[in-house]
Each structure stands twice: as structure tokens, then as C-alpha cells.
């Protein structure tokens, strides 16, 4: 079990204005070493803080690590392709920055690593992250991406490459909070080896111009497992095109994709894709949508693809409004109409994810609580 490094303090503690702190808090970033195992903060292209408080967890900026370890070349741009699209090409530049997180073999750290990508000025933020969980290790990450209040335009481009080695587990929770005119295009790929587990959670509840992403996990190892879950609220003038894809390449590998989408005037494409390519693989895809306004669109596009006979793939998708019968039922227990509606929406967003560490569950709940009062 890795130990906290005695008297460890952030190497450089950046001075942050209260409004910055508030925004960071809304995406799960505490900047408190007591509750985190490592911390990282990048504003635009500059790294403002990078430190690890635990032996067993390495936290560096991507620029630092490219200088430090030659072997990093074996991972850098190996899961995501440089020329995948125009946005990956744009990130393939000198002034790119980002974080490198690595759990050493057998290191199981309960406290999460936090990483914040902060868009301070109205330009393009280019990020490249590399996350490695070595054999038998366990890594919990909160990645909060947000923009400065009043930054009305800008773009966030982020490459994330995950490597989950044998018997390792990564739980990655990404919370986004942007503004009306910001465009966001993450490109993420995870490669999961034998009996590795990759859990990815995504929360978006604030306005945004566009989020477009299709994170993909390749389960190359035997018995590997991936769970993707997302909670997405699209407000007026927001377009969210978000999917999750799992390619089952290892024998006995399995996948679960869950999404809860709410349109309050915005447009949502809720995509999901499971590909079964190996014997005895199993995948389930579940997308549920809730329409809260006469405007807006939820378009659920679940896809299943079998390339091998012995696969078990299934999906369920359902979109609707809040059932009047449920509101009435709760009112018969003394809730007012508004209280009943809020309870049902809150319940709708409450996804139960098996294996999700308590710490991360709490951060997700907090992120939802902070904004739901203003939303519904």
C-alpha cells in the first residue's frame, strides 16, 4: 500500500482568485492535498501546479515526462492517432501541454488524483494527457475541465491516452463546466490488458456551444472490462454529441455503457457502440433520455456490432418526459409538485456504477447538486 509522502506539500502553490477557485470546485477540483493523492493545474498552456503526495503515484506535466523518460515514446500518440482528424493534428504541436499520471506496479491509492484544465483566455487550449496504470495498480482520477467566468469564446482540444495494464484499474471521472461559446473536442482512447478495468464517468450540466467526443476503449486483454457512464444536460443553444465505444478484442472481455441525457432546450446525440470481436464477450448499452422542454432534441444512436459468433450484445434506449403518474405518486406522500419533479430528475441522474470508489461518487453527486438547483 503506497504511503503518503511525509510533510508533502504542493511544490508551488499558485495564488488563485476566489472566482477561479469557485469554478474549479464546481468540477471537483479541491486543491487540498489532504483529500488527494496528487494534483495538477494547467491554465491555457501553462502548468501552474504539479505535485504528488503519495509514493506510487507519479504526476508530471507531459513536457516534463517527455524529457525525463525515453520509454514514454512507446505510449505517446500510440493509442490515439496523430492524424485521426483535424483536431488531433492541431494538438500535435510544440506548445502542447497536459498531464502525465502513472501508478507504479502494485500501487493502489484510494485518494484520487486531481487534474484541472482551465481555459483562462479566449483562445485554443491544446492538451495531451497520458495515464498509465502499471500491473496490479489502482488509480482514481478526477479531471475537471472548465473556463474562466466571462470567457465567452474559445476552444478546448484534449488528447487523452490511457493504458491499463494487467490486473490494473483506472477510474476516470471527468466533470465539465463551460460557457455559451466554447467548443470542446476531447479525443480519448484506452487500451486495457488482461483483467484490467477501465471505468469512465462523464458529467456535463452547464451551457456549452459544442461538445463532440467519442471516447473508445480497446479491451485487448482476456477478461478486461470497461464501464462508461455519462450524465449530460443540454441547455438552450448547447449541442452535445457524445458517445462511448468499446471494442471487445480479448476473450471473456465485457463492456457496459450507460447514459442519462436531459434536454432543456439543447440538442443531444447520445451515441454508443459496442463491437464484439472475441469469444465469449459480453456488452450492454443503455441510454435513457428525458425531455424537459418543448424545444430541443435527444437523438439516441446505440450500435452493436458482432464480428464473432460467440458474443452477447444488447441495448436498451428510452426517451420520454417525466411520467405524470410518478409525480402524482410522490405528491401523495406529501411532496409538492416541484419537489416531486426535482426528486424524479435527481433520481434519473443517479446512475449506480459497480466498482465506483466512494470518493468519486461523492464528487459526482456534489457536481450535480451544485448546479441542479439553478437548472430545474
Amino acid at each position, binding site marked *: 500500500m503506497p504511503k503518503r509522502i511525509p510533510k508533502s506539500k504542493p511544490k508551488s502553490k499558485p495564488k488563485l482568485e476566489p472566482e477561479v477557485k469557485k469554478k474549479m470546485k464546481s468540477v471537483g477540483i479541491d486543491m487540498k492535498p489532504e483529500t488527494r493523492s496528487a494534483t495538477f493545474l494547467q491554465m491555457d498552456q501553462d502548468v501552474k501546479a504539479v505535485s504528488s503526495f503519495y509514493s506510487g503515484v507519479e504526476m508530471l506535466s507531459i513536457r516534463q515526462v517527455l524529457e525525463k523518460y525515453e520509454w514514454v515514446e512507446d505510449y505517446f500518440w500510440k493509442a490515439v492517432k496523430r492524424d485521426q482528424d483535424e483536431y488531433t493534428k492541431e494538438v500535435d504541436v510544440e506548445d502542447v501541454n497536459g498531464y502525465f499520471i502513472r501508478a507504479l506496479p502494485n500501487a493502489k491509492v484510494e485518494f484520487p488524483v486531481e487534474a484541472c484544465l482551465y481555459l483562462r483566455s479566449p483562445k485554443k487550449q491544446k492538451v495531451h494527457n497520458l495515464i498509465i496504470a502499471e500491473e496490479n495498480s489502482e488509480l482514481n482520477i478526477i479531471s475537471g475541465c472548465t473556463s474562466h467566468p466571462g470567457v465567452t469564446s474559445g476552444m478546448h482540444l484534449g488528447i487523452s491516452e490511457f493504458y491499463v495494464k494487467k490486473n490494473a484499474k483506472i477510474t476516470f471521472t471527468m466533470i465539465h463546466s463551460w460557457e455559451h461559446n466554447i467548443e470542446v473536442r476531447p479525443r480519448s482512447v484506452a487500451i486495457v490488458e488482461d483483467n484490467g478495468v477501465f471505468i469512465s464517468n462523464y458529467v456535463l450540466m452547464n451551457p456549452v456551444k459544442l461538445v463532440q467526443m467519442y471516447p473508445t476503449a480497446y479491451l485487448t486483454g482476456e477478461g478486461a472490462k470497461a464501464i462508461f457512464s455519462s450524465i449530460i444536460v443540454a441547455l438552450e443553444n448547447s449541442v452535445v454529441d457524445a458517445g462511448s465505444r468499446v471494442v471487445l478484442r480479448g476473450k471473456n472481455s465485457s463492456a457496459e455503457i450507460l447514459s442519462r441525457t436531459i434536454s432543456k432546450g439543447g440538442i443531444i446525440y447520445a451515441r454508443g457502440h459496442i463491437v464484439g470481436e472475441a469469444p465469449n464477450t459480453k456488452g450492454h448499452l443503455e441510454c435513457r433520455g428525458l425531455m424537459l422542454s418543448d424545444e430541443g432534441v435527444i437523438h439516441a444512436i446505440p450500435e452493436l456490432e458482432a464480428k464473432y459468433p460467440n458474443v452477447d450484445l444488447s441495448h436498451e434506449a428510452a426517451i420520454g418526459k417525466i411520467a405524470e403518474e410518478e409525480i402524482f405518486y410522490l405528491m*401523495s406522500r406529501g411532496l409538492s409538485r416541484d419537489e416531486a419533479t426535482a*426528486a424524479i430528475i*435527481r433520481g*434519473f441522474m443517479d446512475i449506480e456504477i459497480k466498482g465506483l470508489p466512494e470518493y468519486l461518487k461523492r464528487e459526482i453527486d456534489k457536481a450535480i447538486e451544485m448546479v441542479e438547483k439553478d437548472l430545474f
Partner: protein
Amino acid sequence: MDTLRVVNLGVKVDGKKILEHVNLYVQKGQTYALFGPNGSGKSSLLMTLIGNPAFKVFDGRIMFKGKDVTSLPTDERVKMGMGMSFQTPPKVSGVKLIDVLKYCAKIGGYEEKKIYEFAEMLKMRDFLYRSVNLGFSGGEVKRSELLQLMLMNPEFVMLDEPDSGVDLENMVVIGEAINKLLERDKKEGKRKRSGLIITHQGHILDYVDADYGLILYKGRIACIGNPYDILKQISKNGYEGCLKRCLREFQNLNQNLNQNLNQK
């Protein structure tokens, strides 16, 4: 004093009349068993009394504790002391039973620790942190409904088939809970709670003694009498046989019903 007074009530669902000229008086401290064939409007009557917005009152009114509640929303009626257990309540995904129970306890004026006491009694402790009704068996739904009612501690208790699909062992638990709810364990003059219980087979009457039985037939209250007599008649002669006998013996019941039966 009347707890409930339903005057000439007419109800539509989706524009279709399902209850008409329903008159009903429920006195303080008394419990009524409500019988009637499938589709006669029993559940609709309870839904209307508690204020389900899908059930539109087009005629008459509902008086509760001397106040006209016909157009009050459900939560207001509940705050005044009405309470109902549903035959097939909706599953509310993500809304935990415990959270619903906290609201119920607030209505009933109980502290939160009472939730655990009652949950123990109704064998529902393992369900507190589960989504309400989601994946509950038939008997579990009934116990969950009664648990919610016990915490709400209503003056007027409506139960929609609390006994359907319940095994014998659970029947004892449910019977006890209902007796407590309706204060049937107290002496007749001491009872303040009133009840209206829908039952098909009458099983619940083996555990809870009702003061009166009513038959709802084709959208109207057609017969009032001793609940055990009525049950015996129904099982012997069917609803129509029971009503014919009722009409012979109680001439004062309305003519329309008589005609209805004779036309058949």
C-alpha cells in the same frame, strides 16, 4: 361527525364517464370494505378522492373534515390527513424509499428514527436504500405502501387491494399494520381513524374487521351492509345476485340500478 362526505360525484377519465352519482359518507372511527366487480370503478374512486389529476371531477364534490377538497392538489389533501396505499404504484428509478419515507414522516409528525422502527415491523429495512418499488415483489410493494402510510399516520386511510398477491405469512404482518393504522386495536368509541379498503377476495377481512361493506357497481354505490354478509352473498350468488337481494330487502335504493339489472 363525517370524516368524508362524497356528494353526487361524477368522474371522467380521458373524456369517458367512469363514476356517476356516487354518494358516500365515512364517519370518524369507522372502516368500510369496498367491493365490486372488475372495472366497476373502485380504484377510480380512491384515485379521485386522493386527487389524481387524470381523474376529472365533472359533477358533485368531495368534502373532507368539513372542507371542500374537490379541487385541491394531492399534496394538500395529504397534509389535511388523507392517505392512500396503491394497488400497483409506479416504480420511481433513482428515488430511494428512505427519501420518500422522510417526507412521509414529516407529514405524520414523526422523528426520523420512527422510520427504522416501522421498517423493522414491516420487514422493509433491507429496502430503504433501493429505488422505490423497483424490483419489489408483490408482497414487498404492499409492505412498502403500508410503511409509507404508517409514517404519514393519516386520519382517513384508503387501501387499494392491500391483500392481493400476498402470501399467508405476509398477510399477518399486513393485517397488523392495517389494524394499527385504523386503530382497530382500540375500543370502538376510542377510534379516530377511518378507512376505506378495496378488497376482491375479502382475505383482509379475516385480519381486519370492517364496520360496513359497500358494493360499487357500474360506477355507483349500490349496496351497503354488513361486510361479512355481503362477502358471503357475493361468493354464493355473484355480484348481481347479491345486488338483487339487496334491492329486495332495501327498497329505498335507486331505481336506475334496478332497471339496469332488469335489462340484462
